[in-house]
């Protein structure tokens, strides 16, 4: 919310420039955008909005959203520094959507797929009842229509304000993945900045293939929690995509400009199973 106000207040001139948080290079926003929001100098991948992600991944004009009307209520009547329902209203106003994921169908290089894209700007991409339901419905939709599933994950984890119900969404989404997998259809998860906590420990890590964006933060426990528990200072690249690749936890780190062709390729390779079972 504060960010929106701040951004509205900045002058047109500042909007024209963007500073890379990795190498501090100042560049024309337009130029960075043309480069798929990747720093021209060091290759840092700026986080994408859902719309930017769709524009990069989906064939033009093929995206159809499903289940966009689903909203969370406030099951626990949760209040911390402000009531949960108020946080939800603010997040909806800020992002223009009802919760932290959009789901639907599209084509990638003419390959029809079911696609989910998480929105980190909506309460840190946290998974509550709506995200759980939409992910489960996406897999069900893909099952009925025999489509591959591609999921872009960007989430801090479970939505604490929905308490135990948010935890149960981990079970719910994994149950949906299990059912989908029985049809021998491919599921590719793309882990973006960040994929942690309850989302990492459920559907995000269950892809037949797990891809990661360069520099993406991926892990179970938060850095601060680990530092507090172990009393160790962690190296800066700890839990980054490169760290996961090194430890055998992701299949490939795919730069943004190669993402579309990589996805299309692996989906084609996994598509035509010679087996004929229901």
């Amino acid at each position: 919310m504060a960010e929106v106000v701040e951004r509205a207040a900045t002058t047109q001139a500042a909007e024209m420039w963007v500073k890379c948080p990795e190498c501090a290079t100042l560049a024309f926003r337009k130029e960075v955008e043309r480069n798929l929001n990747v720093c021209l100098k060091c290759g840092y991948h700026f986080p994408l909005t859902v719309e930017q992600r769709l524009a990069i991944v989906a064939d033009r004009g093929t995206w159809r959203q499903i289940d966009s009307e689903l909203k969370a209520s406030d099951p626990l009547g949760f209040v911390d520094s402000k009531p949960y329902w108020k946080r939800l209203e603010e997040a909806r106003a800020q992002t223009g959507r009802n919760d932290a994921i959009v789901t639907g169908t599209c084509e990638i290089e003419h390959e029809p797929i079911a696609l989910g894209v998480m929105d980190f700007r909506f309460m840190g991409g946290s998974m509550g009842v709506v995200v759980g339901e939409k992910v489960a419905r996406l897999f069900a939709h893909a099952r009925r229509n025999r489509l591959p599933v591609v999921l872009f994950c960007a989430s801090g984890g479970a939505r604490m304000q929905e308490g135990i119900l948010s935890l149960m969404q981990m079970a719910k989404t994994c149950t949906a993945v299990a059912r989908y997998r029985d049809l021998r259809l491919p599921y590719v998860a793309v882990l973006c900045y960040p994929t942690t906590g309850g989302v990492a420990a459920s559907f995000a890590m269950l892809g037949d293939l797990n891809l990661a964006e360069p520099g993406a933060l991926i892990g179970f426990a938060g850095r601060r929690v680990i530092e507090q528990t172990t009393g160790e200072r962690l190296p800066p690249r700890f839990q980054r995509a490169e760290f996961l690749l090194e430890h055998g936890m992701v299949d490939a780190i795919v730069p943004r400009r190669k993402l579309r062709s990589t996805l299309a390729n692996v989906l084609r390779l996994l598509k035509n199973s010679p087996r004929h079972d229901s």
Partner: protein
Amino acid sequence: MALDKKNNKNHKHARSGSESADSAAQISRPSAIDRVKLARDPRRPQTLDYIERFIDDFFEIHGDRRFGDDPAIVAGIGRFRGRPVALVGHQRGHSTAERIKRNFGRPNPEGYRKAARIYELAERFSLPLITFLDTQGAEPGVGAEERGQAEAIARNLELMARLTVPSIACVIGEGGSGGALALGVANVVLMQENACYSVITPEGCAAILWREATPDKVAEAAEALKLSAHDLLKLGVIDEIVEEPAGGAHRDYEGAAYKLADAIERHLVKLALLSPAALRRHRERKFAAMGKKFLVTKNVAKVSVFN
């Protein structure tokens, strides 16, 4: 689903005496944070205490065949009231030495991968699965991250979801986050009356949402998280509350074990009527329904089961 309703009814009937005592002394009901303290009490019976009391011929397995053995998770096979079963549980430890040895019941990936071996064994040999949830959460450590803590937990969730044998999860202490849930995707979820089950510890929640984990904020977070057995029954997350002996399970291990075993047996008998495919469907439907009644498509500020 129909099975569950009937159980709740039976259960209410069985404890109608203590219910009225409770409502008479509504004010003296323990606060949420007191419940958490009770659930964490190291004197409370743990997985091995229950195994010792109602599992015969127990054979404990060790190791995940990939990295090592995790003493924070106990897994094995044994006989429950005559029939062979598969067992997995967190073990926190009672004495300081045991607690350190068992990492306070906080599993590493190898613990979850050991559990996965038992899930697969249960499936291959048609053994009903009984699990015991009792952990603050999975170990947050460098090694755990390097060895894929998230993947290990996620894989367990999928494996449990796939089982075509009856499964019963018992929350016996503090059920904390994905680290507990990795043992919890079962046909029936039982919870002892003084246990708690939550997405995050009250301390963790307070540190993040209240930005400080002072005793006051932690108590507030515990209240807000709705983590007691009664809250979870209302939310449809558990199937039945298992009564504990007067004063809590730690006062009477035999009594607590007897009540828990009775509840497990009652559910196992009912689940045994379902076919393998129906068992999986039953579990799928149960978890697909989690929180679904709180979804809306119009603007509603609040649909809560609490006032």
